[in-house]
């Protein structure tokens, strides 16, 4: 297979978990809440889906469990920051620690256990296309669900009433109150929905992509997802593209090594992060002006106290 196709295909499959988490975080941030605990939601999602997948033998039930676990952790974040006035960054990191601890505590028995994961579904006709076939249409069903997810989230956020309410919670919270809606409910709901999607991202990583559970297996992908949302200026479509781009950056290292290119592994490992920093810098102020207003307050005015 050519390097090009190899990297693109690896980018789509490897980027999918990041895409789920990134789209989820988009919903959360659109409502004005940033969640560094996304990494934690992915982690509990990975273990939840894996453990339930092992116990039931049904990966779809596993995904539901992973989504629920990710949502539950995010709900706690929503409660702490919205109702208890906790610092968004501190709360997110605390929940990451909680997820790290809980998953290694309860996940140990699932290490090395085989799971009935998702199989590859080759889509008839489309999978035979040159380049596009292997890149887009020779994957697992949870990945295909991601293709549907992005337009759906975009539609809900921008074309429905509930989406409008969520975005208003992130832009002009006061006007929601005026109209008798609860800003808190909108935000907690959006954060939880974000956690559900992050949990599904973790589920993809554990039960569709890597077919394994191991402690701390998310390894920074949740953090990348959070950065990605800003990089994508809060657009689900750009999150999709960005996540695949990240996936490609991750896939590039092994693809080059397998072809015996003289590369420096450690510098290559830094590429996804440097790339994000570079894009954020180049996009510059544009990202800032596109930011939901309430989120901007969180960013610009991180308070010295909780």
């Amino acid at each position, binding site marked *: 297979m050519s390097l090009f196709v190899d990297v693109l295909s690896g980018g789509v499959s490897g980027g999918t978990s990041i895409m789920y988490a990134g789209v989820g975080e988009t919903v959360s941030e659109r409502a004005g809440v940033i969640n560094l605990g996304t990494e934690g939601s992915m982690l509990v999602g990975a273990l939840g889906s894996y453990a339930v997948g092992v116990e039931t033998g049904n990966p779809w039930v596993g995904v539901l469990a992973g989504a629920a676990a990710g949502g539950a952790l995010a709900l706690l974040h929503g409660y702490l920051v919205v109702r208890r006035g906790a610092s968004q960054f501190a709360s997110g990191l605390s929940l990451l620690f909680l997820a790290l601890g809980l998953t290694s505590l309860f996940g140990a028995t699932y*290490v090395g256990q*085989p799971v009935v994961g998702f199989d590859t579904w080759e889509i008839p006709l489309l999978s035979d296309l040159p380049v596009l076939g292997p890149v887009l249409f020779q994957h697992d069903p949870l990945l295909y669900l991601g293709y549907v997810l992005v337009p759906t989230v975009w539609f809900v956020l921008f074309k429905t009433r509930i989406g409008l309410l969520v975005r208003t919670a992130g832009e002009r919270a006061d006007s929601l109150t005026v109209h008798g809606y609860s800003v808190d409910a909108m935000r907690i709901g959006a954060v939880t929905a974000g956690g559900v999607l992050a949990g599904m991202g973790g589920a993809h990583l554990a039960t569709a992509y*890597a077919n*394994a559970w*191991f402690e701390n297996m998310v390894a920074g992908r949740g953090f990348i997802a959070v950065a990605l949302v800003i990089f994508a200026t809060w657009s689900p479509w750009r999150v999709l593209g960005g996540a695949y781009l990240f996936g490609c950056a991750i896939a590039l290292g*092994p693809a080059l090594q397998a072809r*015996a290119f003289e590369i420096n*592994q450690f510098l290559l490992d830094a590429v996804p992060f440097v790339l994000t920093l570079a894009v954020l810098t180049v996009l510059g102020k544009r990202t800032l002006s596109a930011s939901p207003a309430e989120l901007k307050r969180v960013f610009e005015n991180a308070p010295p106290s909780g």
Partner: protein
Amino acid sequence: MSVRQSTPRWAVGVGLACAALVVAGCSSATESSGSGSDEPGKDTPAVGFITVGPKDDFGYNQAVYEGSQAVEDAFPDLEVMLAENVPEDDSAATTMQRMIDDGAKLIFATSYGHLDAALKVAEENPDVVVVQQGNTITTDIPENSGTYFGTVYEPMYLAGIAAGAATESDKLGYVYAFPIPQTIANINAFERGAQSVNPDVETITVSTSSWCDPGKQQAAAESLLAEGVDVLTQHQDCTSTVIQAAEKAGAMTVGYHADASELAPEGWLTGAVWDWGPVYTDIVQTVVDGDFVGSGYNDNFRVGYKTGTNPFVLAPYGPGVSEETIAAIEDAQAWLGTEEGSPFAGPVLDQDGEVEIEEGVIPTYAENDAMDFFVQGVVGNLAQ
């Protein structure tokens, strides 16, 4: 913002720190100067093990745990302590010291990176034996410590024979973490084993820069499979991702750490797995008897097919290994046990065709432990 704190809390903080330091200072002065002993560790009531990862990782650390269980079975009166997730830094010394304070006079520091902390603890506790698994002490070896390991590259050489015989594409794939000598020797031995039955075979290597990141392992496995590799093996702490990736793609697998044949019923060939029980119990017996000083374990101890009791054994064979290949492997194992047998019996050429080991030379186990080049036939670069 919150109520601004003022002096009282500050005083509490600093006062607390000072008071505790004074206490700490007094008590340490009384305990640290234990005198040397001719028979360190003799009649120890307890043995401590520290592992770098969780004891149920289905890999390296689980093998240590199972070895510690063997010690527990063999010495019912001995208390066995096990601390997992002990980082490879100075804080490991505190964990070991804590076991010593609880009565352990024999400590197994089982990760490669625990060596510095192990030597520090050995120096501070002359009556305690601290042995380290997998690394090499390059300075003078203290009377109460040593390192021990098996020669995992020997079974990897044998597994290479199975892989070399089974491959159709003549391309083998190796997923590894970091270019440390142990890993390099494994990769080289695997390739040389494969070459011994299939001169055209090459081993393509991909590093994940991590001992366990299943996501990166999957990417590595996919890239190797895309390059036409039809046998995958690895040197990773968690192993199931690569094995399943191979199985899904219809490729074959050589395992590492544990017998994972149930994950790959079709493609499993064999693998190098651990059995630490005999070595651990022998170390414990030696120490309990007061015979540690000057024993083989008071050194950089290496067991292999030459000495017998290699803690690395070959996993059961899968369906893809023919009778003929099994016979070849058995012959090779017997040969490795002889004087002139070695995966690296000269001549050994490196990737550029330069002679690294002259014809007729049989490198020692110690020399193999210091390997820093890839042999000819290995694809991948070791930046120096």
